[in-house]
Each structure stands twice: as C-alpha cells, then as structure tokens.
C-alpha cells in the first residue's frame, strides 16, 4: 500500500513531463510543409526585394553611381575578393578583430568576475568604467592614433575598448546575480568561498557572459570599420572608404557585404556556444 501510491505519483509526473507541450494545442499541428513556412516566406521576401532592386537598377531610374544593381555588386564583390588587395585587407582587418576582441575577452572576463566577487575592486574600478562606458569609444580614436599610429594597433585598441566593456560589465552582473537560495544550500553543506565561486558564481554567470560576448562582437565590428575609415594602411573598412571617395559604389556595397557576413558568422558561432551551455533550459 505504502509503495503503490507514490509510484502512482511518479508515473503521473512522468506522464506530465514526457509531453513538453503541457497546454492543449488550440491549433492543428503543423504539417511538414507548414513547418518550413517562416523560412520560405523569409527567402521569398529577400528574392522579391533583390529582383525589384535589379529591375530598378536596369531601368536606370537612378544612375549607377548612386544605385548599382545586385548583379553589379556581385561582379564587384568577385573582382575585389579575387584581387591581391583583398588578401592583405582581409588579413589586416581579421588580425585587428581577432587581437582586439581576443584581448577584450582575456581581460574583460576575469576582471568582470573579480569585480563581481570582490566588492572593493568594484569600488576601485567603478568610476573608470562609468566614464568609459558612457563615452562613445570611437571618440577616443584621435588619441589612439596619436598613441598607436595608423597601423593595426590603433584599431586593435579601439576594438578592444569597444568589446571590453560589454563583456566585463555583463560578466560582473552575472556574478552579482547569484541565486540566494543556492547560496544558502551551499553554505549549509559547508561550502568554502572558492567552492561557491566555482560551483555557483561561475556557471551561474555563463548566460550573462555569453550576452556580453554577443554585444561585444557588435562593438568590435564598429571598431574595425570606423577605425579604418579614420586612418589605416590596409583593411576592408579602408577599402570601403577608398571606394566611396572614388565613387566605386558597387565596391562599397561589396565591402559592406563582407563586413556584415563576418558579423553574421560570429553571431552564429556564439549562438552555437550558447546552445551548448544552455542544454539544461527546457525548450
């Protein structure tokens, strides 16, 4: 008797958790074709847009100088990507991005963790962080160029400053938002501070850290483009600015596509990372 009922309860709960959709579906379940619907509509919308653009460009309502058509842009893109100039540009911009963003992670993440963990360190750094975070970091470029020259290092510096703050601040917020009930449980089992840091603070701040990394990518890309617009020797951003000032409009678009593509790829990689750490969140 005393064992039958509880098992009954377990079975009941199993049934309840086995079906992820607890609420009865009000609509008919989607058919296989219908589940592609969002994707299909998205693609169709882009295709229609491109076709319309191409038609407008071919009709030459606006001169090519102002609005090249999609085919012109593809031609320019292929020409740019296959040129020897592109190899140097891509390597330069890629290097700036990798070093600047990498440094922002290497410095911002531990600093955010330490600031979250040691209140006094937060008090020390708070005024600087407030100052820099409310200054558009791009405004520091003239200064950075004086200090680091027009080579890659002024860009590395502006990218670093752009990505560092979102990463550090989000990590800090993650450590600060510890769940009090978890903390109490850990203390009750005699956890040391180091154990609490390792088993609660660190894993608990992962979602925040990932948000910081994603925001950081956006800021880093702004750093690459604007940094190179202002002063540079090589780089995709510089190529775009040069093309702009020489009225190679299609090439401007081509560079834009490359930069946007880099951003999309980085965001996708980060999303993958997020999903890996998020396995425990029910979908």
């Amino acid at each position, binding site marked *: 008797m005393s064992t039958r009922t509880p098992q009954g309860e377990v079975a009941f709960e199993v049934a309840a958790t086995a079906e992820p959709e607890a609420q009865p579906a009000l609509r008919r379940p989607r058919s296989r074709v219908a589940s592609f619907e969002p994707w299909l509509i998205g693609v169709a919308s882009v295709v229609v847009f491109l076709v319309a653009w191409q038609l407008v460009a071919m009709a030459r309502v606006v001169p090519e100088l102002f609005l090249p058509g999609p085919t012109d842009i593809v031609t320019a893109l292929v020409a740019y990507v296959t040129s020897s100039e592109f190899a140097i540009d891509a390597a330069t911009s890629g290097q700036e991005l990798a070093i600047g963003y990498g440094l922002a992670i290497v410095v911002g993440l531990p600093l955010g963790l330490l600031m979250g963990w040691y209140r006094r360190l937060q008090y020390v750094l708070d005024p600087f962080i407030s100052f820099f975070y409310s200054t558009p970091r791009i405004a520091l470029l003239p200064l950075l160029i004086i200090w680091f020259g027009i080579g890659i290092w002024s860009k590395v510096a502006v990218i670093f400053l752009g990505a560092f703050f979102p990463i550090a601040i989000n990590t800090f917020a993650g450590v600060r938002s510890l769940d009090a009930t978890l903390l109490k449980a850990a*203390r009750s089992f005699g956890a040391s501070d180091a154990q609490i840091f390792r088993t609660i603070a660190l894993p608990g701040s992962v979602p925040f850290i990932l948000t910081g990394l994603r925001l950081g990518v956006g800021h880093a890309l702004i750093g690459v483009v604007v940094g190179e617009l202002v002063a540079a020797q090589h780089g995709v951003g510089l190529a775009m600015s040069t093309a702009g000032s020489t009225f190679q409009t299609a090439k401007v678009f081509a560079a834009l596509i490359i930069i946007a593509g880099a951003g999309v790829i980085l965001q996708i990689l980060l999303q993958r990372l997020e999903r890996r750490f998020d396995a*425990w969140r029910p979908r």
Partner: protein
Amino acid sequence: MDGQRTAVKLSARNVRVHYWRERSDEPLLALDGVTLDVHEGEFVSIVGPSGCGKTTFLNALDGLLPISSGSLVIDGRPVTGPGRDRAMVFQQPSLLPWRSVLGNVMYGMELERQLSRREMRERAREHIRLVGLEGFEDAYPLELSGGMQQRVNLARALATDPVMLLLDEPFAALDAQTREFMQLELLRIWRQTRKTAIFITHDIKEAIYLADRVVVFTARPGRVKEEIDVDLARPRELRIKRDPRFLAYEDRVWTLIEEEGTMARAAAR
C-alpha cells in the same frame, strides 16, 4: 516513539536568537529560550503561529545563524557552524539548474569532500533510487515537477549521510495531492534510513502524521509551548488522518496554536 527513549542527539537549552533587520537599529528577538531534546531516530515536527521563529531555530541548528545565548549541542558537540552531521532539506528545491539530477545529488557530497568521485556517484545513484527517481539521473531540474524536485532536494541531503535531517517546510510549495503523497514517501524513506529528523511545517495534519512528537512553539519570540507525543502505530497510512485519535491530536494542536494567535493579537493591540 515505541517504548524506551534512545540517546539524546540534540539538546537545546535556553536558546535565544537575535537578528538584525534592515533599516532597524534594534535587533529583533526571534527565539527566547528554546529548550528541547531530540532523541536518536526520532521524528520531531515543530509547528507554531506564522513568524514564531521555527525556521530561525532550524537555521540555528544547521549552523547558518549564530545563537545569542543558551546552548545548542548535537551529539555532544556544540553547534558552531554548518557541519557534516546535519543536512537541510530546503523549502525551495535550491537545485543547480545547470546540473542533472545526478550532479545535484552529488553536490552536497562534493562540497563536503569526503568521498572519491566514484563513491559519490554510487551513493548518488543509490539515493536517487531511494527517493523513487530512478531513470531521471540525467534529467535537469527544470524538466521535473515540483514534487520531483523536492525528491532530489531530499536525496541530496540524505546522500551526505547526516546524523540529523533538518526539513524546512519542504512540501509547502506543492499542490495538496502531491503533498500527501510526499508525506507518505518521506515516511517510507525515513523508515529505511532511520535518521533523526526535525521537520518544520505550518500544516498541523502534516506535523502529526509524520512525527513521533509534535513541538508547538509560542508566537514570537518563540519558545516551546508544549510537546505532544503522537502515539499512533507505524507504518502510518494516509487514511490515519481520518482516525478519531488523529483528529483528537489535531484538535489539541489547533487549540494551542489558536491560543497563541489570540494572545499575539491581544498583545499587538
């Protein structure tokens, strides 16, 4: 309690606890001289009007809250902080959401650092079986119902092999039916492990159903108002709650708590 009392596991003498509230210059007296003995293998429920300090008492027992005066001795050793001889089952499941059931049950043992990883895993599996969650080792807490989460909470505490199990309203957040089943389950598990248990609850039926002895606290500042031995044979089935003897116990406890409520209200006026 069947016949002879066993050795004293917990001995509380005149325990007073103050604590500081935010935006207040005066400490609040939560417990004012609690004296209580709990014997080995005994199941004691503590009930009392809301805010009477039952949870404060349990936190002090667990070593999470210092006592201001008196003495609190477990197994001959005064309580100075959290220790391996006690384990708490919390009102909220307090599980690490990013760890599986297995990882969560191992967590308490992991923090206490007494066993190898292999031993911890083995003990964890054993206790997952004991609380009836076999097959859910790899599930994450958010995939479980409230009742199942509390089973994990219980398994985590039991797996550390404490001398004394402290339960802080563990079923308070569950729905009425799940709650009844969990009471039955707790008694089955307790019978198998024979831990000394102290159970805090608001629910008088629950207190009587589970316990060998029900301790009624006064309104704040809390003291022991009365102790009532529950002389109902074990194992107890849920239907014992409709037994006239059970109802007589319930009536007695209710009367005591009502008295406290009336006095507290009169004092507040």
